[in-house]
């Protein structure tokens, strides 16, 4: 594996580096836990890596909250997500997803943007963020910003909407509208740690004082080429009492979720297994 490395320290230098690379093959490197595997599997000649690890930029590196919600910089690691109190209290789904990534060692270096831009259907933090209706903050070489809902950002396995002249800068998660939440991440796999999801379900439900579901975000991972936001299943839940979701209603909800799944069979599990377990899991999240 042989490549050139540019390590910009400021945003200006970063944008310059990107600009200079427009005619070349280049990749960003953040925590490198995906990139190195990628390059090992598909060696590339004349590659430049723009190394983000030394970048000093608050928007890229920090977690900040404001009235509208939480901004998480692209370079924030899974370990940092886990330490954040706002995440712990308001977005348990993200906390659980970050906690399920690989192992403690990998979590120290794996970044949020790396997880997202890898665009793997089994990205754990990505799945939780889709359930949270997260929005991407993307800038281009001219320092112009565009925003895009994360669910739209994914365009296929390892495919995103990012243009060559763009970079993901941060992620925004809108604030909860209700105080009461039922939020969690179910990751199915063989091992307790060091496991890539065979399938996953991220759910983030917000209920009012009467336990009526006021907002619902449910995303499923590893059962389609991209992580899926299960729009109709989410809409189906709005206005219902949390305690009403059983029997026929539950069956109905479950089949709404399953509509978004087009699983494949691979070495780790068959499509039958993925479908069956997805159905089973949708039925236990209200327990």
């Amino acid at each position, binding site marked *: 594996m042989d490549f050139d490395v540019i390590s910009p320290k400021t945003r200006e230098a970063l944008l310059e580096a990107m600009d200079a690379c427009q005619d070349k093959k280049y990749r960003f490197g953040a925590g490198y836990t995906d990139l190195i595997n990628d390059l090992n599997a598909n060696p590339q000649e004349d590659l430049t890596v723009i190394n983000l690890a030394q970048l000093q930029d608050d928007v890229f590196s920090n977690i900040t909250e404001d009235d509208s919600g939480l901004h998480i910089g692209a370079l924030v690691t899974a370990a940092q997500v886990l330490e954040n109190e706002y995440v712990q209290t308001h977005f348990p789904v993200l906390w659980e997803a970050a906690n399920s990534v690989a192992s403690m060692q990998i979590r120290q270096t794996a970044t949020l943007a790396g997880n997202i831009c890898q665009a793997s259907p089994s990205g754990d933090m990505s799945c939780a963020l889709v359930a949270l209706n997260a929005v991407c903050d993307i800038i281009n070489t001219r320092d112009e910003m565009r925003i895009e809902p994360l669910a739209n950002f994914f365009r296929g396995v390892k495919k995103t909407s990012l243009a060559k002249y763009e970079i993901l800068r941060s992620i925004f998660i809108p604030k909860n509208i209700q105080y009461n939440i039922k939020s969690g991440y179910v990751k199915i796999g063989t091992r307790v740690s060091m496991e890539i999801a065979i399938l996953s379900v991220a759910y983030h439900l917000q209920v009012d004082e009467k336990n009526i579901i006021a907002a619902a975000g449910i995303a499923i991972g590893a059962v389609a080429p991209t992580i899926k936001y299960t729009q109709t299943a989410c809409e189906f839940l709005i206005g219902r009492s949390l305690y009403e979701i059983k029997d026929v209603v539950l069956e109905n909800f479950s089949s709404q979720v399953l509509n978004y799944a087009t699983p494949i069979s691979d070495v780790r599990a068959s499509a039958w*297994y993925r479908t069956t*377990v997805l159905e089973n899991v949708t039925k236990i999240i209200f327990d």
Partner: protein
Amino acid sequence: MNKNLKIIGKSTPKLDGKERVTGSAVYGHDIDLPNMLHGMILRTKYPCANIISIDTSAAKALEGVACVITAADVDVNMIGYKRDHPILKSNTVNCNRDEIAAVAATSKEIARKALSLIKVEYEVKQGVYDPFEALLEASPTLNERGKGLEQFGNKNMAESFHYEHGDLEAQKARSKVIVTKRYETSRVTHCCLGTSNITASYSKLDGSLTLWASTQVPFLYQRDIAHALKMDASKIRVLQPIIGGGFGSKLDMHPFEPICALLSIQTGKPVQILYDREEEFLASPTRQPMVIDLTTGADAEGRFTFREVKIVLDNGAYTSWGATTPFVMMQTYSSLYQVPACWFQADAVYTNNPFAGSFRGYGNPQATFSIETNIDLMAKELGIGKDEIRLINANYKGEITGQGLHFKTCGAQPALEKVIAESAYKEKINRGDTGRYRRGIGLASMLHVGGGAKIYRSDGCGTRLKLDHYGYLTIITGSNEIGQGSETILAMIAVEELGIPMDKIKVINTDTDVKPWDVGVHASRTSFVAGNSMLGAVKLIKEKLSKEAMKLLSIDAADFDYKDGSMFSSEKEIKIDKVVREMHFGSNELCQVEYFYEPPSSFQDKRFMGDVSGNYAFASQAIEVEVDTVTGNVKVMDVWVSQDVGRVLNPVGLQGQMEGGIATGIGFALTEEMIYAEGKLINPSFHGYKLLTSMDMPTVHFFPIETYDEAGPYGSKGAGEAPLIPTAAAIANAVADAIGVEFFSLPISAEKVLKALATVKENQLV
């Protein structure tokens, strides 16, 4: 036997522990010699094909390439247990590991590039991947060197074992229950964290070859390399760097090893071959996948009557030591519990799959899985407790089994009783949980050799002791350390017997030019055999020391105590270093001794009858699992293990063996499987191959049983393989208890469990 011991029985850290955890240990991968070249192997693209042509010209022309070899360039012998395996393949390739060419270059990158420049033209053939298909008349001959037709009546049979004792038909007639089942076990691999590696350095000056090799059997290896390369064995020096995991994988010599030597011979430079993880999965040995048709019976009281078993082993394309696993399995079928009659047939059949090798347990985990599952089925049919039926039939002290194994000590019954009590088995069994999570408990026992196994001409081990005039002891042992902790045991014996402090003891065990003969590390034999050899040498050095000390102290007769570097007799004390100084510089004599120990075991006869081991280890495990009916995942909650180890030598080391063995056993039971599509491995990584991690480990409650067997050092027995042998069986029984469905094939994957649960549900609805 029960004298007050100073260090034996007390937890002692491993001698190489500090090096290992600080990263200063030198593994084969760390070796870097001047002018060293990097070797790499071109393996076949297809598991079964004719080779039409090989063109290495472009690779040879690449700058930095020192040499490229194919079968045409070398004059070598066949390798393997049956000498049916060419080191480099020329006319045909027969499995997806097959080596076609090798390069040596100045860097790994150049070597890799050179491989990509070698052009091989294939004529792809349809392979045979199912041993039963291979046995059919219509199948092609899968290994041209095989002698199956002459020896066993089928051209694709690589090896065959038959054993029987007792009157099978009479025992069948008196059986109240007879249970027949087919068991299937999967192909799993050792997953050594240190991947395969070798460094070879050939001297054109004197024709000597030095190998830094991760072998478990250096002297057999030396002989195998010599045979492969048509060299004098003594021209070959084998040095063993610290080994990053053995577990049986390094019992056979594999093609990459003589290939590396050949590259060094051709170039006259040192050459190193290191596997990456993918190559490790692809090309290192595996456990034998087996199909076991087992019929067992019991009478109305639950006493076992007979076992009848027919086993087909997938031998793969070539024959390794793995083909001899039936030798161990027949002991289990004939002698685990009391068995009046046994009929055993095992055939290893050539296929186009990769060949297996030896793996901790050596066939015994597969055999035990089948027997212990069948026992539960018989108990169920008879309406007897699954614990009770085992106790009724347990092996006992003094028993001479149908095969002639003589259990001079036997902890089988105490081990069973211990795990039944400690796990609260009686309260937990048949709980009948109905919710999402369902708990179950399972029981299984095992029998394994504990005092070596007489299969090679000598099962012995040599020891040399050298005491220097500073009071330091060097133990030069024939035995090998591959992480199991036996060198620490030898040092502990020296502390115990000679009172020399631990930090004044060195163990030399890595150089065939220096160390005396030993057959190798396998069969749970090392602490037993090397420990006994050590004790023999200690006796001799004590004689030497007391002779000199008596002279120096002017006493006629004395029985010395050895403590803190000194010798004591009544009120008199003399320092050992002083005795040695006087011996060297006064009597002009070295303080060195040597001893060779050969265990009292005997060869089995042609019918495989005989007392093959110095003693026997027994163990039982009770395992509690929790099945998640949503996902099908089986979680192992607790393992209670009780094992007759004769005597505990190093508690912390023993606990390590238990936990490591059980981890492998759990993987074998639940998650590990090499998956092949038409002979090609499709999960050659830890991503796809589910080796468990420390996070998946249950609590292991270990209760050693001490039976003080007089054959073993301080009464001990071999303990290394045992902990994984009954694990899969106990887990299978526990899962059956939890969800009411029995599993006859491994691994019991989440998917299989979920399918079984779905089938049960369907049947209930009908």
